[in-house]
C-alpha cells in the first residue's frame, strides 16, 4: 500500500536575512535565542522549528508566518 508522502516545511530565512542589511547567522541566532548551528540547520531545511521559534523569527523580519514558512506538499 503506497504511503502518503510527508509534508516538509520550506523557509526563506536565508533570503530575508541577507536582505535585512546583511544580518549574519550569529546575529539572527542571538536575536531569536538559539545557537548559530540551529540557524544553519533551519536555512538548510534539515530542521523544522517549534512554533515558538518560528514566531520569533517572523517577528524579527516583521513578516507574517506564511511569508517566511511554506508547507511543501
Amino acid at each position, binding site marked *: 500500500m503506497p504511503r502518503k508522502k510527508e509534508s516538509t516545511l520550506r523557509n526563506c530565512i536565508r533570503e530575508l536575512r541577507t536582505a535585512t542589511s546583511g544580518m549574519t547567522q550569529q546575529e539572527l541566532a542571538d536575536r531569536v535565542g538559539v545557537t548559530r548551528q540551529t540557524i544553519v540547520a533551519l536555512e538548510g*531545511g534539515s*530542521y523544522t522549528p517549534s512554533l515558538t521559534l518560528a514566531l520569533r523569527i517572523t517577528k524579527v523580519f516583521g513578516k507574517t508566518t506564511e511569508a517566511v514558512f511554506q508547507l511543501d506538499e
Partner: protein
Amino acid sequence: MNAMEKVAWTELVVCVTAVASVTLLLPWLGDRATTGFALLGLMVFSTLFIRRRGNRVVVDERDREIERKATSIGVSSAWMTLFLVLIAATMWSGYSHVDAVPIRFLNWLIWIQFAICYGVKGLVAVIMYRRQHAA
C-alpha cells in the same frame, strides 16, 4: 560544532575507550577487568562544554530534541540488552540445571548496560547532528 555535539562526542569516545580498555585488560585481570569501566566517569568533564559564556545561547530547542531522542534510544538499548541477557541466562539455567547466577555475572551486566546506554546515546546524537549538518 556546538556545545551539545561536543558532549555527544565525549560520551561516545569515553564509552568506546572504556570498552576497549576492559577488553584489553580481560586476559590479564579476568573479572577484575571491570575496573576499566571506571573510565566512564570521565564523562563528567563533558559538562565543561555547556558552561554559559556571556549572553550567548549554549543549548537550544534543537539540542534538547536531539538529546531527548538519543537518551530514549540509549535507555531502550540498555533495557533490551538486560532483557536479552536475562532470557539467555534463564535458558542457560534451564539447560544446565544451575539455579543461580554468580554475582560477577551481574557486575558485568550492570557495567555493560551502563556503557551501552551512554555509548548508544552518544552515537545517535552524533549521527543526528551529522545528518543535519550534511543536509
